[in-house]
């Protein structure tokens, strides 16, 4: 770099502009690739965008903390976006009320499976206690999961990463698993995706259909609440095994 360029870099690196712009550019590049790949779930835009950002942070030797100073504006929108999920829920209200009983039972089964199998598999293969506690809430959307992790002795920032990984995996594999099981009802497909893979799964479900998206959004919201309430008790139980 010439001295002049280096000066500009030092100036820009200190402002939030760079982190924010990088996030938006990386995501749009990833989304362009995703569309080019015919919206194939394997070309997951979150995974690609994260990979681009990691590479550029590594290349420019930028610490994550500095990147996040800009990216936090995007991260912050998770809050209002969660509130906005009320709209697809409202649009499906009649169906939701009609299916309330089965949905509650399926939610309970799915939520317990998510937490139990994550903790058990982690423990079985020798994960440390802090890692197991960070894994436990990984099926729940980021802001909720981070809050839970903090309460039960996990690492909130690690949980955030595991949440995103889970969401990507769920969005990538969901279609194949559901096709394999011959699950056809879009409401059922969406609901299962939302319980397992929160917002990233929901984004994918909205691409399958409006109904799948709404049920995924519902499942994501309900699972967030249920896990937040249940997990502290489950952890207590787990620690006594």
């Amino acid at each position: 770099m010439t001295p002049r360029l280096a000066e500009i870099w030092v100036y820009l690196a200190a402002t939030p502009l760079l982190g924010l712009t990088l996030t938006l550019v990386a995501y749009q590049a990833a989304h362009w690739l995703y569309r080019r790949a015919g919206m194939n779930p394997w070309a997951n835009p979150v995974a690609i965008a994260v990979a681009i950002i990691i590479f550029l942070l590594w290349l420019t030797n930028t610490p994550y903390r500095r990147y996040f100073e800009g990216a936090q504006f995007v991260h912050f929108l998770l809050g209002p976006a969660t509130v906005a999920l009320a709209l697809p829920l409202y649009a499906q209200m009649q169906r939701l009320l009609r299916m309330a009983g089965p949905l509650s039972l399926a939610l309970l089964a799915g939520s317990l499976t998510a937490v139990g199998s994550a903790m058990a598999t982690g423990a079985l293969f020798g994960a440390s206690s802090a890692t197991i506690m960070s894994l436990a809430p990984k099926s729940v959307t980021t802001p909720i999961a981070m809050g839970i992790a903090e309460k039960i002795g996990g690492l909130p920032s690690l949980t955030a990463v595991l949440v995103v990984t889970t969401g990507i995996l769920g969005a990538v594999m969901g279609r194949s698993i559901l096709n394999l099981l011959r699950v056809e009802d879009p409401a059922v497909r969406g609901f299962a995706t939302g319980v397992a893979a929160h917002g990233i799964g929901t984004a994918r479900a909205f691409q399958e259909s409006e109904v799948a998206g709404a049920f995924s959004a519902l499942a994501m919201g309900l699972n967030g609440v249920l896990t937040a309430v249940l997990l502290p008790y489950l952890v207590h139980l787990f620690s006594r095994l």
Partner: protein
Amino acid sequence: MLAALTILLLFQLLGEILVQWLGLPVPGPVLGMIFLFLALAWRGGPSEELRQTSNTLLQHLSLLFVPAGAGITVHFARLGDEWLPILLSVLVSTVLTIAVTSLVLRFLLRHRKTEEA
């Protein structure tokens, strides 16, 4: 768009205040979502503006997870040590959760349909 964004933020704020005040285990935005849902039910649906703004936000829901995902850089050391249990845990749990939830729900819905018939 501005009015709609304000509404969303107000509901989130309402949720956060109640969570802090009452010490609830639920995160503020989730409570805000529940309140907005109730408000929509009471009012008989969203305004066109709120509908459009929410659509825009939800269409790009994936984008909002990107900053948290890039946080993986902070945890490379731990992931290096524990990558196998972490990967297996996330993989097994995600597959099982999708399978169990969808099969239970399908079973219950079918069961109910045959009962009604």
